[in-house]
């Protein structure tokens, strides 16, 4: 094939364009979040008296932390789908929730007597937390990966991992409104592990599905 002829063919094909990642993501987000919410309300459901409990700092903190992680990983995943985009700054912003979590652990350690630490860490629902976060994250992860396939991630594994981080954060934010364990010890251990599972799944899926 002559390169000139290839160019001629590409120019003739210029009318058919795949939609940009942002638009696909916006469209895919609707069924993805609907499925996640459907699973949430059929299997978990809101914690009783949640609105009244939001005054309790531990509860509002864990929900806000998950939402912050989702809000920060969203722009990063979009940039990873664009060749040559600057990713350092949005990646560094991910240290904010990590730092906040570290501060909350220190605050918890300072205010809760040491004999209660083990109980706070194990909580009442650790295994359920580990199952629920990935389950709620599954549909969002599929949606983000579908959107990324319309982009051009030159680091498919990394892009998939951040897609997993974003979906894991969404799953964790939903789970946080159900979960009766509020201690930062619990959140730092089990939420982190749940999100890490989704991140790992995303990395493997991205590595396999996002090459181009």
């Amino acid at each position, binding site marked *: 094939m002559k*390169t000139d002829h290839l*160019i001629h063919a590409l*120019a003739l094909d210029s009318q058919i*364009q795949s939609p940009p990642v942002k638009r696909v993501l916006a469209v895919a987000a609707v069924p993805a979040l609907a499925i996640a919410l459907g699973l949430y309300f059929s299997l978990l459901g809101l914690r009783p008296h949640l609105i009244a409990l939001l005054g309790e700092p531990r509860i509002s903190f864990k929900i806000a932390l998950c939402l912050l992680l989702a809000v920060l990983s969203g722009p990063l995943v979009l940039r990873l789908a*664009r060749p*040559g985009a600057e990713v350092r700054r949005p990646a560094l912003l991910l240290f904010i929730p990590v730092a906040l979590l570290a501060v909350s652990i220190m605050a918890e350690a300072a205010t809760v007597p040491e004999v209660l630490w083990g109980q706070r860490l194990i909580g009442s629902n650790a295994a359920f937390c580990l199952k629920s976060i990935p389950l709620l994250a599954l549909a969002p992860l599929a949606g983000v990966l579908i959107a990324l396939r319309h982009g051009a991630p030159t680091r498919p594994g990394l892009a998939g991992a951040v897609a997993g981080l974003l979906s894991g954060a969404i799953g964790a934010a939903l789970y946080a409104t159900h979960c009766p364990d509020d201690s930062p010890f619990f959140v730092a251990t089990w939420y982190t592990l749940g999100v890490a599972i989704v991140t790992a799944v995303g990395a493997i899926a991205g590595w396999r599905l996002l090459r*181009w």
Partner: protein
Amino acid sequence: MRASDREKEWASLMRASIAGDAAAYQNLLTQLTPVLRKAARRGLAQAGMADTDAEDVVQETLLAIHLKRQSFEPEAPFGPWLWTIARHKLVDALRRRGRRINLPIDDFVEVLANEDFEPSMIVADVDRHLDGLPAGQRNVVKIIAVDGGSIDEAATKLTMTKGAVRVALHRGLASLAAKLR
């Protein structure tokens, strides 16, 4: 022309292309080709590979640019976008060639010595994958991308509608790119 001016021109051509200007698009790809060729040759030479493969890399990069052009953000600079894709496809090509048995370099000496060969005459890797396409896509891609025919010609020869030819061309180019992964 300074490199930054050149990239600004490419960026505006790309914006026009995404807006549907096929002539601007052809102009852009034609301008990019010698630059990509130079980069491919340099990259292959650095990796100790024969630069007879350069045209393959150029064609694969053009295909990638084509299929991923929506990932170009209109306000973003063009250079980093282009070079990231070019490097990505070069690395891809090297990785794939690394798995193959390479011919001894002597076989290429004659080709390399012949400096004035027409690079776009080289039979590229892309060709080897053409036969793997479904017949409908293959016929259209052959008429348009190999023989340089028009949409109308392909439609007449294959008794297809122009719309069907366009769809088959698009799918054919996309499957070619997929086979090159």
